[in-house]
């Protein structure tokens, strides 16, 4: 009894917070747009009894999914989202790894402070931090003012509303998710392994590539997934920092939903996005599982 209850809790949780919303979205994605409240048809009407339910299911179709393949906007947006996610994950890794490495090699009494500094941005609203970047990156922003003042440039750089601004925003926002798993992998590493590698004839650089990188690989993989998965569906950063040329599926989704008020197509976009994300999520789970097995 107790056992059943314990197992039931996570399942109820999953059912209520994941499966039920997913099926609602799936149902809407199979419906048609309508000028009504809610803006789609058919709606489930239990008062008609069994025939009503049958009627409801007979009206569902895959029209919206077909539409997604017909208009090239959608697959271009998916592709561009994945591309932006891959590039920005790589950039985040490039910035995050040295920071994590520095933290793990810092004197032990400094580490909690450094960790605090990494987490500190979470104390402010994400939205406000992205707005702050608009202030930094705009043509009259702090960055351009600084560069003009130092004389490095004579005309302001256009950064805001380009993909560059999106990359900057993503790297900044998701950096802690990259740093923390890598840091925890590096911190656990036995320092004497590096000494052993040097003792056996490695230079510092070789020891880094042959020992440090392989041993921090689980952290690198975890960090990359933690960044890439949410970035594919990212909406706030591309819509605030990106320009008209920035095509990301999160933005398309938002426009379908709020500008077009086409809930069924928006839902279809969301379902396909979920399917795309399932692949890296499953890979991520596998990696985590392998890591736990290796530690045992």
């Amino acid at each position, binding site marked *: 009894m107790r056992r059943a209850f314990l197992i039931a809790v996570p399942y109820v949780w999953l059912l209520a917070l994941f499966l039920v919303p997913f099926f609602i979205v799936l149902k809407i994605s199979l419906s048609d747009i309508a000028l009504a409240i809610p803006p789609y048809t058919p709606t489930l009407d239990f008062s008609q009894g069994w025939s009503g339910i049958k009627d409801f299911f007979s009206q569902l179709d895959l029209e919206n999914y077909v539409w997604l393949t017909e208009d090239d906007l959608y697959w271009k947006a998916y592709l561009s989202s994945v591309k932006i996610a891959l590039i920005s994950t790589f950039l985040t890794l490039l910035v995050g790894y040295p920071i994590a490495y520095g933290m793990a090699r810092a004197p032990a009494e400094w580490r909690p402070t450094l960790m605090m500094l990494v987490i500190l941005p979470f104390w402010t609203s994400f939205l406000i931090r992205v707005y702050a970047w608009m202030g930094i990156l705009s043509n009259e922003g702090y960055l351009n003012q600084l560069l003009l003042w130092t004389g490095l440039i004579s005309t302001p750089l256009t950064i805001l509303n380009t993909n560059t601004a999106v990359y900057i925003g993503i790297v900044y926002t998701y950096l802690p998710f990259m740093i923390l798993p890598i840091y925890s992998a590096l911190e656990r590493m036995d320092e004497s392994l590096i000494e052993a590698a040097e*003792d056996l004839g490695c230079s510092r650089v070789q020891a880094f590539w042959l020992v440090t990188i392989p*041993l921090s690989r689980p952290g690198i993989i975890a960090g990359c997934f933690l960044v890439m998965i949410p970035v594919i569906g990212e909406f706030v950063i591309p819509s605030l920092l990106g320009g008209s040329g920035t095509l990301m599926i999160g933005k398309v989704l938002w426009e379908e939903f709020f500008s077009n008020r086409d809930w069924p197509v928006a839902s279809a976009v969301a379902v396909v996005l979920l399917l795309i994300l399932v692949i890296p999520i499953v890979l991520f789970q596998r990696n985590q599982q392998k890591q736990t097995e290796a530690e045992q």
Partner: protein
Amino acid sequence: MNSDVFAPWEDPQAKPLIQFQNVTKRFGDFTAIDNLSLDIFEKEFFALLGPSGCGKTTMMRMLAGFETPTEGHIMLGGQDIDPIPPNKRAVNMMFQSYALFPHLSIWENIAFGLRRDNMPKRDLEDRVEEMLRLTRLTQFARRKPHQISGGQRQRVALARSLAKAPKLLLLDEPLGALDKKLRQDTQFELMDIQEKTGTTFVIVTHDQEEAMTVASRVAVMDQGQLMQVATPDRIYENPNSVYVADFIGDVNIIEGRATANGEDTYQIDWAEGQAPLTATSAKGFARGQACHLAIRPEKVTISADRPADAINAVQGKVHDIAYLGNLSTYHVELPNGTIIKAQTANTRRISRRSFTWEDPVWLSWTATAAVLLAD
């Protein structure tokens, strides 16, 4: 001395492989190694022995190249190695934690150093197989370090550090993580491998038994200084200081004042109402000079009656008995409260033991049994 015996330190012509020349190492205000000079010869199995914090690990790390001397020089085969980084030294180290690479198989761990030298594939494979055979690990070659036992890991670490055939192998507490029985077996294995490969070994340990078993010479260290460097038997039988006598094995230390009463023979007055003790010493002592008499418990004889011919005999009663199975150590309390330990082999069953608690007994030892020390 027999010329077959391996003792290059006795030979003034012998060239040492390693020379510490007035080496000092400071970490901030702390002096880890204090103006230390030492010669270690080729093919030696040399032990650095001391309590934790005595500087023995620093000595080893300086040899490996992870630390550089603050003052003085270290020579390896006549060459000053201070500016040579660890990866360029013909010195390999076996780490206390073994430091095996967890992401590589046993085979790859052993091959790691050879790959850095760009050894041809065939030679490399032969060398790794040879090392696996030497350390009896052939059947574990494909496993990862976390899939084998502690004793096997220790052998992998040894094989990996020996693979490059270093001029000098450093072993940092190599047996510290093994249990006692396995440790004893491994000690002999280490000696065998050292003999087979002819490599010079320097071992760091805090375990005096281990140092005595494996080493050709032992250096006893304390607070960054060498207290005594000698063969295990000389360290044990002829310690040069109370510190060494006390650090190595069990010992009774009796304080007193020495007075010469013959050639190399001294009379030691040590307690009110007790007859003076007699000890021989080649070292000269001034009349009435304060001295310490160090006597090993196994050299003290315990008996019910005063032995007729004993030069040194004291009476007391059995205060405590430490029964070790093969040996028993009797703690005998003298009338003035001094405790003297006497050790005997348990040649008879315990039920037939001659002495028990509170029994009055006599302790005796010869004039040459004790070592007379100045400080």
